[in-house]
């Protein structure tokens, strides 16, 4: 297939996944902000719950260029509907729809119609309405539209190269975003050191699990209290958990095996290496290495893999 087409499809699915995960990130922040916390050092803005989505998505600088104060309302405005912030949910959906429009022959008409109607809907939403209807209501809508699009894709599309590049985009983005969401806990301070393992800690981990649809799975698997060690295991190493890093790397590696030929074997090899690290990884090692450090390292590797895919398939230099 055309490189340009593959590139647009890859980014179409990345942007939809990004919109969904932005909604998840805001969801966990919103839930955590409802829990009690104390300002440890006044003026230490990054310690506030609403700074967390800005820090983990790397948008703090852009935010403070536009807003003087950190407030729930400003952060939500900035990350949900801001047409000038390329990472806002609005811009992600717009970019996804633009990509789909420019290669609409490569996807099924059901897929295009579904994405187009999501776009037509969000275009009519203003912030006052989001607040009036409830933030969670809107975030649920975003997640639902993403599920719907994935379902339409799964149910209508030929399993050809176009499909593989869509899958590749989805899982690469999801791996990146799950790692960032998991890292949220690192940035969220507890009222005091004595609270580690206490009630607030427990609720924060619970909120994080819920935001990646992992709360019920956690209960099913462990039937026990929530511990950071198990949350890390669930979201990093368990391959039966669809948003875990391991599950994402399974998809990515498997897809690259299908689309790589001898000239692009190197991309498959480096994906395989990252996959093996998760496949044979141990929770104890991750905890010993430091969860935050582990996630930072993973984010760097997944970003390199994305660049390699781009160079070999999407934007070739010949």
């Amino acid at each position, binding site marked *: 297939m*055309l490189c340009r087409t593959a590139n647009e499809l890859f980014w179409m699915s990345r942007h939809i996944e990004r919109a969904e995960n932005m909604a998840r990130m805001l969801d966990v922040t919103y839930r955590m902000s409802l829990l009690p916390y104390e300002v440890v050092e006044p003026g230490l803005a990054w310690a506030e719950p609403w700074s967390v989505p800005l820090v983990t998505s790397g948008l703090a600088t852009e935010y403070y260029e536009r807003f003087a104060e950190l407030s729930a309302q400003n952060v939500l405005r900035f990350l949900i509907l801001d047409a000038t912030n390329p990472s806002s949910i609005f811009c992600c959906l717009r970019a996804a729809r633009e990509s789909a429009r420019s290669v609409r*022959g490569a996807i099924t008409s059901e897929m295009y119609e579904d994405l187009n109607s999501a776009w037509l809907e969000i275009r009519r939403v203003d912030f006052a309405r989001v607040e009036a209807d409830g933030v969670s209501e809107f975030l649920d809508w975003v997640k639902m539209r993403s599920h719907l699009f994935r379902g339409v894709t799964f149910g209508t599309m030929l399993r050809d190269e176009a499909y593989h590049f869509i899958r590749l985009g989805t899982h690469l983005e999801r791996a990146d975003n799950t790692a960032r969401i998991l890292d949220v806990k690192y940035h969220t301070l507890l009222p005091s050191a004595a609270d580690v393992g206490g009630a607030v800690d427990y609720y924060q981990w619970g909120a994080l699990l819920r935001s990646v649809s992992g709360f019920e799975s956690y209960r099913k698997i462990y039937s026990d209290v929530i511990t950071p060690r198990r949350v890390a295991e669930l979201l990093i190493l368990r391959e039966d958990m669809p948003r875990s890093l391991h599950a994402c790397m399974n998809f990515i590696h498997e897809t690259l095996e299908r689309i790589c030929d001898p000239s692009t074997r190197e991309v498959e090899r480096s994906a395989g290496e990252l996959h093996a690290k998760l496949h044979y990884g141990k929770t104890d090692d991750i905890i010993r290495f430091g969860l935050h450090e582990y996630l930072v390292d993973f984010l760097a590797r997944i970003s390199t893999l994305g660049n390699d895919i781009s160079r070999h398939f999407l934007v070739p230099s010949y």
Partner: protein
Amino acid sequence: MLTAAGLARSHYLPFSGWLEKTPPARIAQKRDEAERAFHRVGITFAVYGEDGGTERLIPFDIVPRIIPADEWKLLERGLRQRVQALNLFLHDIYHEQAILKAGRLPAERVLNNAQFRPEMRGMDVPGGIYAHIAGVDVVRAGEGEYYVLEDNLRVPSGVSYMLENRKMMMRLFPELFATQSIRPVQHYPDLLLENLRTVAPSGEELPTVAVLTPGAHNSAYYEHAFLAQQMGVELVEGQDLFVQNETVYMRTTRGPQRVHVLYRRVDDDFLDPRAFRTDSMIGVPGLFAAYRAGRVTLANAIGTGVADDKSIYPYVGEMIRFYLAEEPVLNNVPTYLCHRAEDRAYVLEHLPELVVKETHGAGGYGMLVGPASTAAERETFRARILAHPDQYIAQPTLALSTCPTFVESGLAPRHIDLRPYVLSGKTVDLVPGGLTRVALREGSLVVNSSQGGGTKDTWVLAG
């Protein structure tokens, strides 16, 4: 639709009977449904001159235009004859120029025409076909005879609306199709692909066809994508192609892949910055050299614009007589060429009755409809004609046929035209139907979508 006595013509009777029996509320609901569906499917076009990224719907009217079997038979015969003659003409003027030597057409009208491409002289194209896809605009007027208004031989558009309108009508009113014999048009993309394959460079068993588009911001982008998808071929932009050793390749995820036939929806001028406009950002450097070497087929060929130019139009009848030794089946509208002194004098004297068009104009831009014009508009055109007489032609205002159409006040007659699509490859083919455009403003004769025109489904009845 109505006879002179104001009665519905007989082939409209089943439909008007159905319309009378159907509650207005249901019709209104269906019209709503159609609009929502067109929006969701994204059948939009961009409007030039409006803010960037403007996407608009072309208004769709649910009352079909119906053509009886015998009328279509005549139309079809006339269209085949016309397009055949036009292809022979194009081959001739880029080779022997017999028609010019015989004095049947003034040589300077062809050779000095801005659309004549000297680069094409002496070059052979597969099958001698230049206009692979022709969109011929016809109207029914006067006593019911058909007139050709314009032969569109460059990159005629609109066929996707023909197909989508039919799909919409079948979805909204399946009962109408169940009770009448309406000939299908949905196989057009198959016919197109088949035709394009037959004109591939010789020796290609399984030629690769692609649709070349200027990109997502082009007003007809929806159609380009639609046709590529329906034919199951790649939709490419200039940046997706490159030329090496006079061979055209696409950049694919598995490396370069050769292309044999390009159904190009890019104008001649922008195809190749090395051969034509050097500032073209949407072209493919080296494409023309590959074309001249016979390594790729362009559909339509380069240089077809000289045959659909409005100043050449009056001679199409002569072409039919010259190349086919037949009398034209379809009428031409009498045309006054303003560069002729006596024609010009007549035109300037009769401006309020005439339609004045620019010879190179398209899309309904730059035209004067005499009966609807103001004195000031006529004065502007008088000055323009006097300054550049060779850029203008004029035609009498035809009493165009009308078709009932939903407007704000309810059903009212509105003027319509018809654009059937004629495909030429090894054979000449067309599907029974075309795009019916309707002028939505009362009394207006301008049906172009850029001027507020709408479209209708076109039903050709089985005989």
